[in-house]
């Protein structure tokens, strides 16, 4: 989660995660909870580095759900859902994007801090050579 300046292009290391929705009764569920959004209070977000970051974060993963099997982790920031940008969304709009009834699969681009460190380590190792 790099420094987030509104209006400026954002550079982040992302990971592609594909989640197949699970049918439970009448609903298609993904098995995680989101928090955040541009209409929410960013200061209460425990996962963000920059407390002004109003992006959508994964706050909980139901154990055994499709999100867990797809390797989504708690604290991930969702950057894109099926090609739609999620960095400037209200909470409700984000929820709607994730719960579209006619989609079976959601392809997320998520970023997390450990990704950046991993890249840095690998690049650093490369550069040392």
């Amino acid at each position, binding site marked *: 989660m790099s420094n987030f300046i509104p209006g400026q292009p954002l550079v982040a290391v992302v990971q592609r995660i594909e989640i197949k929705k699970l049918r439970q009764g009448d609903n298609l*569920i*993904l098995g*995680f*909870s*989101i*928090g*955040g959004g541009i*209409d*929410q*209070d960013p200061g*209460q*977000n425990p996962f963000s580095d920059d407390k002004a970051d109003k992006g959508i974060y994964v*706050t*909980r993963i*139901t154990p055994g759900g499709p999100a867990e099997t797809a390797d989504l982790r708690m604290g991930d920031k969702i950057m894109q859902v099926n090609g739609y940008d999620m960095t400037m969304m209200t*909470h409700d709009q984000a*929820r709607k994007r*994730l*719960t579209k009834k006619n989609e079976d699969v959601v392809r997320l681009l998520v970023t997390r801090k450990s990704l950046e460190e991993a890249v840095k380590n690998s690049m650093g190792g490369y550069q040392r050579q």
Partner: protein
Amino acid sequence: MDNESTYSGYSYKSSQSRSSRKHRDRRDRHRSKSRDSSIRDKSVTIQAPGEPLLDAESTRGDDRDDNWGETTTVVTGTSVDSVSNEDLTRLKDLEDSSPLQCRRFLGPALGGVLGLFALVTPLAFLALPQLLWRDTLEPCGTPCEGLYISLAFKLLILLISTWALFLRPPRATLPRFFIFRCLLLALVFLFVASYWLFYGVRVLEPRETDYRGIVGYAASLVDALLFIQYLALVLLEVRHLQPAFCLKVVRTTDGASRFYNVGHLSIQRAAVWLLDQYYNDFPVYNPALLNLPKSILSKKMSAFKVYNLGEENSTNNSTGQSRTMIAAASRKRDNSHTEYYYEEAEVERRVRKRKARLVVAVEEAFTHIKRHQDDEGSVSSPKHPREVMDPREAAQAIFAPMARAMQKYLRATRQQSYHSMESIINHLQFCITHSMTPKAFLELYLSPGPTLQYLDTSRGRQWTLVSEEPVTSALRQGQVFSLRRLDFSLVVTVTPLPFLNLGEEFIDPKRHKFVMKMQSETSV
């Protein structure tokens, strides 16, 4: 100095001052000049308070020994060391205040005579026909009696309201005429005079027989007098109540300043009102509390000598010399600010230490006495009869343990000239009589109170109003005038109060709604 009254006013505008000075001179013919000569005589001795004297005072304070009864010595212009501080303030008080003379009642006496004349006139109007040509008068029945009653009550009301509003001893003598008062007196005089004129021509000459008309005439006079009194009330008492200007008052010696709101007044009236507030609000001016010790200030200039390396004009020399000295002194790295800082911290620490000692001593002293209740008289055993004292003796008894701490504290805060031992014992007696706590006893000494506390109110105080405009002109924006006394002055600046544009915004009480700043979590 030309003919001046007790309060002299300087003004530099020519035309108005000339005419009013003429009036003033005519009025001042009776006034004696002994006051002025006494000022001139005393001024020779009082010339002494200047810089060297204050230094002597402030340094002598520490090594003077602890006895309260100061021996007095002769005050002359040359011997600086032999004057004592209390003598100086006593003399200064004598000098500054004047015994309240009967002169100040002259103006009000004039007004009183005129008022009495105006009040007696209707009765004279009624009485004269009865006395002079009683038999030819037409008898008048009930309408006359109604008029008599209304006349009587209106006169009574006039009398009472005149007593309530105007019959007060004047609190100040103004340098110029109080314009509104003069206007009103002139109006009353003209009015009554014209009534007498008409009365003389129309009633006394032809011996008018219509008594009802005469009574009606007298009643109309009383009505008109009531209206004049209403006018007087509005002009003298009510008009200046609505605030219109803000006056900033700054004392020149120590910078104490206040802001006051006044209404539409002339400069002299505003000055009098201001001085009333001054005695109430401003802490007493203590000349012993200087800003910077001389040791710090005098070091700077004397460290340089200026050498002249060329042929120069002698007149340019001195200014150039002083300018180079000032420039050099400012460029040199001086540490006088650190000295000042440390010295101030040291003084403050000393004052606080002595204050702590004083508070403890006073608290302890107050525990030695308590109020004697009459009903427990039989409880005390006959072997140890308790001595019953009156407040004065009790005060003297407990003064001894706190005397030293008190004296040291007063020395540290340079207040020793304001409180003599006698006055401290008096204050102690007062506090004991009213069952005050030690803290209440100490409030007089711990903070410098308003000037009024230290005044001897049986004498008048002399102030000089210095202004560039005639002092009877009304207050305007940007005026500056000052009120001067011997050793300090108050500079007053006038600014008008801003015009207030008050708007309205109605808020429906149901519109107060709030939302929580959310961090909602939705499971998808």
